[in-house]
């Protein structure tokens, strides 16, 4: 497997005084207009000393820190970095909704929902047995396997409410005869510390992952699929844990790296005739644009390669890759309280999808999937099916 090539972290610029007020940022911002604000106005408020008003407004939380504004900025100002900083100035008890409570929970219990260890282990055992009976004889969920190749972190929303969704990855690991494991403690995949701009919490959540990887002596950590969480982990990895992990012989990989390895090395066999319908792909901001903006390798072509192995008819949505519009649910917006704003934000995504005429929409971030499948499909009457990219692979497997 190719190691992730990294140069330096962040070329971004926090000096908002450089702003030319050109409004390039506004043009591609789906949150522009909500509460009369947009990225340009928010930056003007910041520059003109109205920081407190901005901190007290909900706009920096309706903004999904997707970075499309900064991608267009001719002065290379890191607008999402500034908006994240504004989020960090909110007193913790005033962080919207349950986001801060989730941060406390993960720090105290190792998962956002305070799911007890016994319940978690019971679930993994039962679901593993089910999958073995369904299609994967002999399968069981490997927990705390020392020396496993891949370390996978479950997302608490699946453990809590969508347990069967975990089986797609398990089927792929089974088919590939992969060596993998999940941890029994501090297993949370998502990083709400990055959502609430709590850098200290985000670092601790990343450390849970690094400590698990070192304890279990794994070869690879698979970054969370959740975009914000993958970026939260990547940021901390680059800043604090890179040397430590290298010394321990542990590499950070993304879901695409794993799937492509399995496909290219012939470890899994795919039947693309299972997906003849017109299919499109939604680029999650934090797997592409945000990495690119921070001088890290963006995952634009990898998902397309994977999809084309599994689907007969692929069509791009426009714009795409670095210019794609955010789904509207990133950086805590899915779990946050501003539902109407989130749906309004998603109108541009809905229009992009409709314009493709695709019947199947693939994405690779939990929040993007939920926003498109559970919200936008209904709100904007989209005649589509939505799948995770690993679900697509699992559904295309020849076992």
């Amino acid at each position, binding site marked *: 497997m190719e190691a992730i090539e990294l140069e330096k972290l962040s070329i971004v610029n926090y000096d908002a005084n450089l702003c030319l007020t050109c409004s390039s940022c506004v043009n591609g911002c789906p949150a522009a207009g909500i509460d009369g604000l947009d990225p340009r106005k928010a930056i003007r408020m910041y520059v003109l000393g109205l920081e407190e008003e901005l901190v007290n407004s909900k706009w920096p939380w309706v903004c999904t820190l997707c970075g499309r504004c900064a991608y267009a900025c001719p002065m290379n100002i890191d607008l999402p970095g500034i908006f994240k900083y504004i989020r960090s100035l909110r007193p913790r008890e005033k962080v919207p909704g*349950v986001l801060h409570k989730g941060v406390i929970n993960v720090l105290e219990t190792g998962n956002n929902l305070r799911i007890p260890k016994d319940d978690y282990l019971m679930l993994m055992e039962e679901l593993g047995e089910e999958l073995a009976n369904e299609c994967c004889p002999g399968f069981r969920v490997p927990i705390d396997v020392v020396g496993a190749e891949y370390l996978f972190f479950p997302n608490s929303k699946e453990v809590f409410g969508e347990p069967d969704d975990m089986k797609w990855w398990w089927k792929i690991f089974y088919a590939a005869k992969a060596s993998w494991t999940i941890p029994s403690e501090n297993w949370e995949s*998502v990083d709400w510390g990055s959502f609430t701009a709590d850098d200290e919490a985000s670092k601790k959540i990343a450390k849970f992952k690094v400590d698990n990887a070192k304890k279990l002596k794994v070869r690879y950590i698979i970054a969370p699929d*959740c975009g914000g969480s993958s970026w939260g982990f990547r940021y901390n990895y680059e800043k604090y844990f890179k040397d430590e992990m290298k010394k321990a012989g542990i590499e950070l990989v993304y879901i695409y790296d794993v799937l492509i390895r399995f496909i290219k090395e012939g470890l899994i066999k795919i039947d693309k005739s299972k997906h003849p319908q017109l299919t499109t792909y939604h680029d999650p901001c934090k797997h592409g644009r945000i990495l690119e903006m921070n001088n890290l390798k963006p995952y634009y072509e990898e998902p397309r390669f994977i999809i084309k192995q599994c689907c007969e008819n692929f069509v791009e949505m426009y714009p795409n890759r670095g210019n794609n519009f955010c789904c509207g649910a990133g950086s805590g917006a899915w*779990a946050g309280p501003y539902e109407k704003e989130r749906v309004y934000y998603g109108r541009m995504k809905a229009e992009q999808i409709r314009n493709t005429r695709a019947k199947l929409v693939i994405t690779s971030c939990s929040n993007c999937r939920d926003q498109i499948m559970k919200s936008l499909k209904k709100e904007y009457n989209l005649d589509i099916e939505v799948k995770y990219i690993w679900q697509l692979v699992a559904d295309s497997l020849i076992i």
Partner: protein
Amino acid sequence: MPIVEFKGHKWEVDEDGFLSGGLDVWDRDWVEYVKHIEGIPELTDEHWKCIHFLQDYYRTHGIAPMVRIFSKVTGFKLKKIYELFPSGPGKGACKMAGLPKPTGCV
């Protein structure tokens, strides 16, 4: 804290519309209110079975149960739970039962 009113009864709710006072102030009118906003046509014994189980579990464990446990105890599969509570077990059933909003991406 925002206040919601339904048929002359007022409750304090949090930003997500969950009952701020929790089980201490929960009553049948609240259930009627959530039924109304969720667009649930009729409350059945199946709804009440879910509500009572969620409340019992919360009183004992201080959290909402995993759906797996919810399903096992009530005998309702996830699909059925979504039929009963269109917003799902977290945003729908927990809200109706007076539990706090679950702290995950649910």
